[in-house]
């Protein structure tokens, strides 16, 4: 039963991931004052890249890099329950808890960092270093918020967190914690003030510089699924988890639209500015939120 | 501007443009004097005109004053073949790039400016291209080949001749009838 559950979750994550990616391009197109591509355009892009005739590789480590990253994304999807109280769509979340998921989110990018490092392109490793430097301050407000949620729920298991939010979701109980987490959530999703990792004008498309053909396709697919997993995590932690599929779509969509619109009106901080910013206001929000727990 | 007039024989070309001819020996001292004593403190352009029939280049230092409302052209004639002029990088740092361009385009040497590597052309073996004896059309014929005309269309001039003849004969036929 668990296998069917996992397969269904992966299918949902893949579908919703590309749907939201297409929606992102459409919504930001409307902000720009144009129509934008069809909703499935990102899916077409990834299939086209999969069926290209050539993809350059730089040895077996470069080949393994994106695979580890995709594995990290898939594991994230599997270890976060989609539905809060039901028994379907739980995946493997019973045998793991929130702290494991937090650190799984970093496993994929570190695996990819090995792959990108092995191709010898300076732009790739500069993108990775920017990601890791930004990670130092990006995790701080998110951890503060997550610690608050765990202490409030009394355990790190998702079921306990859903229990704690059964009457009132964390967004209302701990608004400050939600704000701190949302700011660093913008960074995880690579939205504008913090999208410093692959900035094309600065680092020549960062880590994805040497990815061609099927490797770039794998990168796109895993980033679609990974962003859906992050949306899911935010819903489970702060919006009381999803009662059923419809509720899931609604809540992730609301979070997603907020992130998109915020992202399209901000200029990009430099790496050091984003670290300094994240260490000031969001961390303060988190600490005050914890104090008021 | 007036005290400069007596000091040098300056011709006024337009209300805001003056010209001054100096010999190559006094060039650097004049520029030095203008740079520090007068208010012509900026070198905004370094021009070179090739008078091939008179066998000489004409170097022009375009100086602009502090208020940027008046330009003074300091010009001097130099020989055409492997001539070197004292570089003015010490007076005007921005001259470094201008001299590099003239060195590559005209072959004029500037001793004192050590960055005279290539400015716009890469691996250029031929004559400096802006000299008048360099014929660009001949270079194009020898290095590049053009797209040969479309085989389905005849030469345009012939077509025009045929049409004219047809029109004339048609008019005569119409006149005759």
């Amino acid at each position, binding site marked *: 039963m668990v296998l069917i559950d996992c397969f269904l979750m992966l299918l949902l994550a893949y579908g919703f991931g590309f749907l939201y990616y297409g929606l992102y*391009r459409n919504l930001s*197109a409307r902000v*720009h*004052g*144009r*129509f*934008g*591509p*069809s909703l499935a*355009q990102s899916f*077409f*892009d990834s*299939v*086209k890249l999969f*069926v*290209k*005739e*050539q*993809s*350059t590789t730089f040895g077996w480590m470069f080949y393994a890099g994106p695979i580890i990253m995709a594995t990290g994304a898939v594991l994230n999807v599997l270890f976060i329950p989609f539905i809060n109280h039901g028994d379907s769509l739980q995946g493997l979340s019973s045998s793991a808890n929130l702290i494991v998921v937090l650190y799984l989110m970093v496993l994929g990018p570190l695996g990819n960092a090995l792959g990108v490092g092995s191709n010898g392109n300076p732009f790739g490793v500069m993108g990775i270093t920017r990601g890791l430097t930004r990670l130092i301050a990006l995790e701080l407000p998110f951890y503060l918020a997550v610690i608050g949620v765990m202490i409030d729920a009394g355990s790190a298991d998702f079921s306990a967190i859903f229990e704690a939010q059964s009457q009132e979701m964390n967004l209302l109980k701990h608004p400050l914690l939600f704000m701190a987490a949302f700011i660093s959530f913008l960074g995880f999703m690579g939205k504008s003030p913090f999208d410093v990792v692959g900035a*094309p004008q600065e680092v*020549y*498309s960062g880590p*994805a*510089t*040497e*990815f*061609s*053909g099927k490797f*770039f396709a794998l990168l796109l697919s895993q980033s679609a699924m990974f962003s859906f997993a992050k949306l899911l995590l935010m819903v489970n932690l702060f919006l009381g988890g999803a009662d059923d599929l419809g509720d899931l779509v609604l809540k992730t969509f609301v979070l997603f639209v907020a992130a998109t619109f915020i992202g399209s009106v901000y200029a990009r901080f430099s790496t050091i500015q984003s670290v300094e910013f994240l260490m000031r206001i969001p961390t303060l929000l988190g600490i005050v939120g914890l104090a008021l727990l | 501007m007036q005290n400069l007039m007596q000091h040098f024989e300056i011709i006024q070309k337009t209300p805001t443009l003056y010209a001054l001819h100096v010999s190559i020996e006094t060039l650097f001292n004049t520029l030095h004097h203008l740079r520090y004593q007068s208010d012509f403190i900026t070198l905004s352009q370094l021009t070179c005109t090739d008078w091939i029939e008179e066998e000489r280049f004409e170097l022009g230092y375009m100086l602009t004053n502090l208020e940027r409302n008046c330009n003074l052209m300091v010009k001097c004639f130099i020989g055409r073949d492997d001539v070197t002029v004292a570089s003015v990088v010490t007076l005007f740092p921005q001259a470094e790039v201008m001299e590099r361009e003239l060195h590559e385009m005209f072959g004029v040497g500037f001793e004192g400016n050590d960055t005279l590597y290539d400015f*716009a*052309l*890469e*691996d250029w*073996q*031929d004559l400096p*291209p802006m000299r008048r004896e*360099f014929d*660009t*059309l001949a*270079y*194009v014929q020898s*290095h*590049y*080949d*053009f*797209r040969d005309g479309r085989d*389905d269309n005849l030469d345009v001039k012939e077509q025009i001749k045929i049409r004219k003849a047809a029109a004339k004969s048609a008019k005569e036929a119409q006149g005759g009838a």
Partner: protein
Amino acid sequence: MEEGFNAYRQSLESEEQSIKSTQSVVEQAIAWFRAHSMFVLAYGTGCGAIEMPPTFTSRYDIERLGVVGVATPRQADILIVSGYCSPKTLKRVIRSYEQMSDPKYIIGLGSCTINGGMYWDSYNTIKKLDDFLPVDMYVNGCMPRPEALIEGFVKLQEKIRLNSSEAGYIKYRDNYAHYRANQERLFGAQVAPSYEENFAGMN
């Protein structure tokens, strides 16, 4: 036999019918995906690059056709040579083209790529882009308008859907020696590392 544009259009349609019947459904699907998602390399080589911002932004918005600008040649499918090409630029253009992964296409903008255009007598521009790189689609005009550029992309999409064997990258791969000879004749020996072995294992 009639010549001119209509003839070319009929021959295109008839070829399309003949090819459609021979190709399997999978190949047609692959060609459909390749046509509906084109990544253009962000490289403004000549003065035509000034008409690319209006085409890629909100007024003419080519993203509706699935065309997106990408930063590196590895991710790109289409290289736009926008206007005249000096040997120094041509060296970089060839380098970028050879780093793109198959199937890749070239769009030549403006008359300068067709016959040297306004700089026919300039010592530093190439007169015929076709000698050095296989051009799939020419868009004429001394800087073609955004509408002409979009028309060029639509025509290219039709050509990609045909999945025809005489596409640019196949031509480049098959007679690579011819193109290489032209390049070396123009640049002398300092050409970017040759990709001879690159194609050895392919066909």
